[in-house]
């Protein structure tokens, strides 16, 4: 009986890293947007926060696109 520990290990590692990284990115994006929301309420602008937020969301969208590519491959 041959259990493919290497494959299982890499599934574990990749899943952990990718999930945590994606969720972190997305949360940072949400942080940026909610900072902008507060800034707008106080009449300030938060251009940097918004740019950062959209950069984060773009990275997440790229990950989703890669996921769809994997499904089709």
């Amino acid at each position, binding site marked *: 009986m041959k259990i493919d520990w290497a494959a299982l290990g890499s599934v574990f590692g990749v899943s952990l890293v990718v999930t*945590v990284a994606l969720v972190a990115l997305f*949360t940072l994006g949400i942080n940026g947007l*909610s900072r902008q929301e507060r800034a707008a309420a106080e009449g300030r602008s938060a251009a940097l926060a918004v740019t950062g937020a959209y950069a984060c969301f773009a990275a997440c969208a790229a990950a989703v696109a890669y996921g769809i590519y994997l499904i089709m491959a």
Partner: protein
Amino acid sequence: MESFSLILAIVVVTALAFDFTNGFHDTANAMATTISTGALKPKVAVAMSAVLNLVGAFLSVEVANTISKGLVDEAGIRPEVIFAALVGAILWNLLTWLVGLPSSSSHALMGGLIGATVASAGFGAVHGDVLVTKVLIPAIAAPLVAGVAAMFATRLTYRLGRDADGKASAKGYRAGQIASAGLVSLAHGTNDAQKTMGIITLALVAGGTLAPDSDPPMWVILSAGIAIALGTYLGGWRIIRTMGKGLTDLRPQQGFAAQTSAATVILASSHLGFSLSTTHSVSGAVMGAGLGRKGGVVRWSTATRMFVAWGLTLPAAALVAAVAEWVCGFGDWGTALVAVFLVASSAAIWKISRREVVDHTNVNDHDVSGEEPSGVVTQAIAAVTPPPAGTVGEEATAGTAGEELAAAIPAPAPTDPASPPARTTV
């Protein structure tokens, strides 16, 4: 389609019925978290999942082409064997749906194939080591991998996002959940609709209608995709309730972390060649997300029932399939008897499910303190145990179930406008 024998037609219809049960059984995997956190309205969620399942079915035929390879010797496969396997898998899917427990449809199908093969060709035809590496290890690994990832992701999103609040945050988590749930739906359509395509193709090859090594014909792809999408749209509300509300109480952040973890695990595992069950991954992710929030709890009694169901999936489906194959062995009337038994017990299970209807209107009403869930489960198990475990007196069981069917027909439950998740599926 010229030389289309009756048994082949029965196998195709049964395979599509299995595909249909697969659809409503696994809606929860994609949509339980979005429904329970309120990111999508229940009906919208299942509609979206159904469409993505259908789309997914057309994306690739890779899985269909490798189905069942390695687990059993294809030489022993006759259409009757596949039919018996499907009977076992369908009944197990319906039974677990009735008690509202998520379990792997793939394991049910594999169990059915193993049981039917053993009954037809003996234990030698099953590769025990493949069983361990393809079924047992993944069943333990999937919830652990997805759970650990979801737990860390939940902790992280709570810590990083502690300053985030207001509309932007709510909207953001909603969008994130929908995106990850969509990805799971798409992956499910590709994987599970293809399993049915693979089964039908295998039957067509075994019956001599298709040349060996052919790709699934277009009508097979189309009908398999439609069957799974219809099943998904009906929604396995009982299982959605267990997964979304029963295991733990999910907040949007947790739903997002859980669904993202599940999507990642499913894609990573199928891409890196260590296939993990979608159901196991999602259940594990939901529990991990439950543990990741401060003050979050996992209801271990529900989880334990679910684990028991996972453990039973393969042997139970195998047992039913083996009995079905044995009865089929008596000739055409045996096959007919099994078909009648399948229809009758499906109808019986559906009838029992009407005693306590779970649909899109009450899918989120999980009463934590009440004894309602265990009461229903015990009652349901008590009520349905005899038919599937009917090793003795198959004919007698089929007879009683048939009477129940006759009783069930004049009462099509006109009181409920929502479509019943499990109509007589054949």
